């Protein structure tokens, strides 16, 4: 294996890991605030990608500008979903039933996308689609760099929001101990709704980043569910730093394994990691117990 190929794989792996980290952060947020496994996350991702594509096709503007609409829209949908649907489930069976409920939402989104845009594969054509940046013999596509940049900016924003604002403090308190948070006067229902909205807002950003350099079609979300679920299990359900580290490690691993194994078999890394985690360390490798820290 040549040095530049290895370097290229490493760089692409880091870029991919960054995007995975952004997508998995949303999943850990839902699990943290509500103990909800949100199977519709990747469906919303594809929805955001379609909205970005549609925006560009209709207006001819850069797909990144669609974020101005999609982020608030997804935040609102998230708050509504939590308040109107998730909070209706019985606490005793919340985890299991939320899986089925969010799964049904994923089906509805996939069906509506298929109905509205047909099953045809779509791709955004951009002036910088084919551009590369050469770096020590490796060439890095500009779109992947932009996607990574979006991921870094939004993860940093999420970190600052959680660490430095009163809302973040309240959200962390709700995650750590809901009842205690209520006792000190936090409206945990409202905070949980906002937390859910925040998670879905990350899906809007992630989906737009995804739309920059991949072909999209309604059933694409199935391809994302597995890797994302593997990441949050390996990282420890509910832990944001755990998810970020696991995303980076698995993204790098996938990128490096693609050279000897090819793309399909490299995908199995996620499932191998998932099963290995359950056999060796069921609570996950990198996070603490259930979102104890951020």
């Amino acid at each position, binding site marked *: 294996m040549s040095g530049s190929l290895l370097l290229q794989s490493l760089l692409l792996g880091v870029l991919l890991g960054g995007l995975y980290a952004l997508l998995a952060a949303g999943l850990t947020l839902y699990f943290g605030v509500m103990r909800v496994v949100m*199977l519709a996350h990747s469906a919303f991702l594809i929805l955001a990608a379609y909205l970005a594509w549609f925006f560009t096709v209709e207006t001819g503007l850069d797909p990144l500008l669609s974020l101005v609409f999609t982020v608030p829209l997804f935040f609102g949908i998230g708050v509504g979903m939590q308040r109107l649907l998730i909070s209706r489930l019985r606490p005793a*069976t919340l985890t299991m*039933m939320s899986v089925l409920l969010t799964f049904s939402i994923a089906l509805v989104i996939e069906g509506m996308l298929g*109905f509205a845009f047909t099953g045809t594969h779509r791709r955004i054509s951009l002036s910088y689609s084919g551009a590369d940046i050469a770096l020590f013999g490796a060439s890095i596509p500009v779109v992947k760099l932009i996607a990574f940049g979006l991921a870094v900016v939004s993860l940093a924003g999420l970190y600052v929001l959680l660490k430095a604002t009163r809302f973040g403090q309240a959200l962390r308190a709700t995650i750590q101990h809901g009842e205690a948070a209520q006792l000190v006067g936090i409206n945990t229902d409202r905070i949980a709704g906002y937390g859910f909205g925040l998670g879905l807002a990350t899906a809007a950003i992630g989906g737009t980043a995804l739309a920059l350099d991949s072909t999209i079609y309604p059933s694409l979300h199935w391809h994302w569910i*597995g890797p994302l679920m593997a990441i949050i299990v390996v990282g420890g359900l509910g832990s944001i730093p755990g998810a970020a580290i696991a995303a980076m490690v698995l993204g790098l691993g996938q990128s490096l394994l693609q050279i000897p194994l090819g793309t399909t078999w490299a995908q199995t890394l996620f499932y191998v990691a*998932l099963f290995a985690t359950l056999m060796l360390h069921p609570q996950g490798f990198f996070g603490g117990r259930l979102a104890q820290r951020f």
Partner: protein
Amino acid sequence: MGVALRAGRVIGLLALAALVIAFPSLAPDPFILSVGVVITSYAVLATSWNFVGGFTGYISLGHAAYSGLGAYATGLLIVRAGFNPWAALLVGGVLVALLAIPIGIASLRVRGASFVIVSIALVLITLLVFQSWGDFTGGSDGLRVPRPFGPDVMRPEQHERFFYLHAALLAVALLCWWVIDRSRFGAGLKAIREDEDKAQSLGVPTFTYKLVAFVVSAFFTALAGGLYALWFGFLDPVFQFSILAGSYLVLMSLLGGIRSLFGPLLGAVVVGYAMEYFKAQYGDTQLHLVAMGVLLAVVVLFMPDGIIPALNGLVNRFRPRAASIREVSQGELAERRREAEPPAAGATQEVGR
């Protein structure tokens, strides 16, 4: 249980059996007959799913992995190893059950959300393997499974035979579920469903119980998959290993009611029929996905215990209050005791508290 209720159940069961036996002669055309085969196939799958879902409360979205493995095991044993079709079906079921042991050991270590995630991962990984390993499994080109009956057996007759085969398998699965339901083993499983930690502290060997239920479930699921493969004659990984197919089983079981013997069967009839209808009406668009999604959401939100308990609740509302001890609240019980005891003793007891 009252004699009338028991007699009613026997009559209901006989009516159901008569309906199943008469169905092929009632069906107006081979298409309806083939829909009948599909629905009985779903009924076997949902009942098999219910060995884990109903008894232990572990919701598996990934049972398509076992039906797909059973289907492929049957097909591959016939095509690659020259087995007799029926031997291949049985051996395939046993192989999948053996494979389910390590999978169960890994996935039953975790509960709730993680278990669901693992079950999804299982479908995705089997899909990946069967698509990529094309020179053995046929890959995305699919695998043609030879028909078990000779070429002189015509299509409608083939449907009829497979309808009865599926119905027989369904009867065996239902009987097995019924036996477990009334056994000590079943009581242990239901204790796991209600409160796993308490069950364990009461001495239920929870892990072994869960594993046995899991393997039995995988065995029946694989048999159903294998039987379907023999009937349909063609396997494609995308349809065999699909989370969607797995989720339909969950929808059927939940809709009918996972705590009752015939719940999954009822759900399979309702959902299976609805599915065929939606596919026939909106097959070109993706609206059948929307319909299924909405149906699942309605079931989860409004009747998580299923149709049978929901109807029972409705009937009970108009019935005189039952006299079972569980229907009596603690307050009523205290009232009754107070009436039975002499007033002085009641008074001291009140003071003693």
